[in-house]
């Protein structure tokens, strides 16, 4: 049995004529320690899929199971506990709390746990150390760069050692160099045993994953990530030709 299982997931937004089907009978299985990339056009249903996997969005039908726990059979408050124990979220726009310092933001998932504040701080500083930001622990989010904010978001996602890391366009707001650094960080975390599931438009980012799930019109199918290499090279070639014809520098 797979560690994470989706069984015939359907998600329909709205009712009647206004109904939009975001997921159509999606089923898949993921193993613990996988690095998955979910790709697809805008509106293909990948964000819906990610939110369902994050126990944030109840599917219209079907089941989503982690460690044989039927996530949507859990009550609201139990689902909140599930998110705290099983899921680490990395958002595209970082979603840091602006009035909390870097270390306080990282401590947020530990806030409701019954452990000493000093211990929480040690755990948060440890997580910040793993993303290379120990020296900026007492700054506010507005006092650090976008790349650093993304690292803080990653530290916050891993501070309570969840088995699953869900990343929604983690490099979407970053330049390519910083984006590559973030992806290296995610790969390291995956190598340390964490299951990483990432939604992205970026082929370069998707190449870091070991498995690729592609979504189109609410349906999902698996592709070989090797194909992405060819797609990336092809895309790079097209860009180069386009720039040359425009008189630019390739």
């Amino acid at each position, binding site marked *: 049995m797979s560690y994470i299982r989706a069984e015939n997931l359907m998600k329909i937004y709205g009712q009647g004529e206004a109904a939009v089907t975001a997921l159509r009978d999606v089923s898949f299985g993921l193993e613990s320690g996988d690095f998955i990339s979910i790709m697809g056009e805008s509106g293909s249903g990948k964000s819906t899929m990610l939110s369902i996997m994050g126990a944030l969005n109840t599917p219209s039908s079907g089941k989503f199971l982690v460690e044989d726990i039927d996530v949507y059979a859990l009550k*609201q408050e139990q689902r909140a506990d599930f998110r705290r124990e099983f899921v680490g979220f990395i958002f595209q726009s970082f979603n840091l709390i602006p*009035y909390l310092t870097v270390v306080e933001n990282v401590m947020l998932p530990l*806030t*409701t746990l019954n452990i000493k504040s000093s211990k929480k701080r040690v755990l948060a500083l440890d997580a910040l150390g793993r993303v290379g930001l120990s020296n900026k622990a007492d700054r506010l989010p507005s006092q650090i760069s976008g790349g650093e904010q993304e690292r803080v978001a990653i530290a916050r996602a891993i501070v309570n050692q969840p088995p699953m890391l869900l990343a929604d366009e983690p490099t979407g707001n970053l330049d390519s160099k910083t984006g590559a650094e973030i992806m290296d960080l995610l790969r390291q975390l995956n190598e340390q045993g964490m299951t990483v599931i990432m939604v992205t438009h970026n082929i370069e980012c998707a190449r870091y994953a070991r498995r690729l799930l592609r979504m189109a019109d609410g349906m999902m199918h698996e592709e070989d990530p090797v194909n992405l290499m060819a797609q990336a090279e092809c895309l790079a070639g097209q860009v180069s030709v386009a720039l040359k014809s425009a008189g630019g520098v390739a």
Partner: protein
Amino acid sequence: MTLKDIAFKNLRRRKAKAGFILAGILIGVATMVTLISLIQAMTHDINHKLEKYGANILIVPKTESLSLTYGGLAVGGVSFEMQEIQEKDLAKIKTIKNAANVAATGPMVLGVIEVAGHRVLLAGIDFQAAKILKPWWKVQGSNPGDNGILLGTDAARVLNLKMGSPVKVNNRALTVSGILESTGSQDDQLVFTRLEVAQAIFGKQGRISMAEVAALCNACPIDDMVQQISGVLPGAKVMAIQQVVKSRMETLQHFLKFSYAVSIIVLLVGGLMVLVSMMGSVRERTGEIGIWRAIGFRRSHVIRIVLLEAGTISAIAGIFGYLIGLGATKIAVKFLSQGDVLVPFDPQLAAGAFALAVLIGIVSSIYPAMLAARLDPNEALRSI
């Protein structure tokens, strides 16, 4: 890092919003404290004035009376079985439940004497108690000693006596030690002497004709005190001089009701301000609440954060509202009352104001807190 830290840090960040909520409750609490403190101060002031007003309870011997009529025509009545009051029994008044409200007890013995061919009424009184019971008395000369008398204005004129004049009463030589300035009451026609002197003159040692009591009974009905005194003095008839006290207390009661009504309205407005502000705050923080929920905060955690914020502001508003209310009362009494009226720190009112402020803050924030807790985390995150 606790939920409390999140609440406090958010309050520090949103000072203007926090200040608005604080102002809403603070104005309500300050108004309530001002009005109630003002009533307390005025009550104290009225008590003080009542004390100046003098006796308001009379104790007279109990008599059985029989009215006589014939053919529908009243032809008089007879009193019989009159029970005299023993002076020592007055000490029992100190044992009643509301003894603390008794400012003074003035025993009096009355009898008719003949001076210079005129029959006048001699009253033996306790001059110490008279200072409280008859504070309007102004004496030319001095209060009588062991062999002295004090004359009412009319009595001095009719008897043609001056200060220092010798007077012989029942073979006892007395001297006029003072003359009472006109009071406009029956006191002007009386001759006063010390209680024990009058008792000796009339042969009524240890007995009195009546007693006056100055009772300050705002917190309890004067009727209660009358009943309590009747209980300890079963042989006496106890009567309240109620009109003045009643009318003043009624005025106070009306003002008290008015104050409560005003306080409730102002506090309701304060509560509404909290409700509207907290609703706005929750809407502004939709994304933030989405983040909390996404990383595993339960609904109850979100509710606790919102209520902690409201409770903290309300507690501060309660403390400062009380202090401002107390200050406002001190200023107001200077305009509303003559003389020094004390406005002391009242721990009960302070605790009540604090508790009410926190209660209003929290009750008004329950709906916004529920609203925050019910936010769909997925929808909330989309709002960012």
